[in-house]
């Protein structure tokens, strides 16, 4: 476990994400509504560059919505650019496969700097 300063908080504006390199490891850093998350930039499926994918929400539709489509979780779902696997950014869980969960790295803000712990 080691903490790495990856840059001033101003460089990670709200509701954006980007990939940073820590040693030789690519990490996606996400600012979701002001809360920071970090995930490995590799998809467990075919090893695609997961965190280069887009972040948005997903669709829900069940008895609770009257079987109408409803857009939910906006800004919290990461989609791999290769095959479209969706991941819940806060937990790292794959939406389609509950047993698949990628690592999540702790992120802290100290003295205006974003710090990721690997």
């Amino acid at each position, binding site marked *: 476990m080691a903490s790495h300063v990856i840059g001033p908080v101003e460089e990670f504006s709200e509701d954006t994400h980007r990939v940073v390199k820590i040693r030789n490891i690519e990490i996606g850093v996400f600012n979701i509504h002001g809360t920071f998350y970090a995930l490995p930039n590799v998809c467990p499926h*075919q*090893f695609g*560059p997961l965190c280069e*994918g887009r972040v948005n929400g997903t669709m829900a539709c069940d008895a609770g919505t009257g079987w109408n489509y409803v857009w939910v979780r906006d800004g919290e779902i990461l989609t791999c*650019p290769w*095959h*479209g696997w969706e991941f819940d950014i806060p937990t790292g869980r794959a939406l389609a496969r509950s047993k698949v969960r990628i690592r999540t790295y702790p992120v802290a803000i100290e003295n205006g700097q974003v710090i990721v712990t690997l």
Partner: protein
Amino acid sequence: MATPLSVIDTDIHSSYDRRRMLDFLPEPWRTRYASGNDGPGHLGYWNPNGVMRADAVTPDGERIEGNPRHLARYFLDEYGIEYGVLNPERSVHAGLSPDPDYAAAIVSAINDILAADWLPVDPRYRASIIVAPNDPDLAAQEIHRMAANPGFVQVLMPSGARMPYGQRYFNPIYAAAVENDLPVALHPGSEGVGISGAPTAAGYPTNYLEWHTDLVTSYMAHMVSLVTEGAFIKFPTLKFVLIEGGAAWLPPLLWRFDKNWKALRQTTPWLERPPSEYIAEHILLTTQPIEEPDRPEHLRAILEMFPVERMLMFSSDYPHWDGDTPDFAARALPASVRSRVLSETARELYRLPARADHAAGALATTAAAARHD
């Protein structure tokens, strides 16, 4: 991986610029195409992630599949691919236009673009001769026109169809193909488009997930038709390639087909052997989208149920959303057939010489090789 492996990719989707098409389309088709009428189009099913992989761009943001040098640099080089067969984006749909002359003109222009802009650029490129099958005589003419160029290694038709491809209506296409020693390949994605039948036997599905999952059913129908109608008796050297259908569906169909034939043999007296034997000799499948059961040994068991070493060839489908990387496909295969599937069966079918400038064993097995940074 202990053994160095070559990779021949049997399904890569290059694209072409609409404006470039105008350079090869004669009138009156040129004016028609320039007006925006470029064939029967799609049914409008929606893939929320896009059919084209979003990350298939160069560092400058250009689409990799749109430029022959980019595709060579950022795909063939990255994976050490020895040869790649180009099946251009949007090319087979044109064959389902209700207007056979216009369909023939469009596919000819696409073939001309392949010959002028792609094949000369890199010795690793091979390509399919796109034909519009619903006028078989025009399709045969197109095969004869392009076959002299050794860069073209097969004939390509849509698997969306008006009728099953074993019917003798299509014989002129097969006659032209075997005369030129070319296999005939099908590619899915046009099911339900233009003058093809409904995309499934049950009718029109509602969404893309459903439509895409059901695509393989048209392969089942064409395969059974080709064998039953005796296409491989009439054309003993004819080979058929079913691109992008995966493989796991095949064994149960073979069993069902052989069982029925034993009782109904007299209705097809030209079939002297069980249908599965003709299929093993004349039909090849490509791996992608390779099935991904939760327990990988289930797929391996299925791959023991038909002659994989002669029937299955690697395909990536790059840069589509459901593509397979060579290393992913290689891991799914038993070691005993990897070399056959990844390169050697395709090398024999398409008569591809071993390339002196190609380092065998370039198969990338790391995630980093999949990216260009």
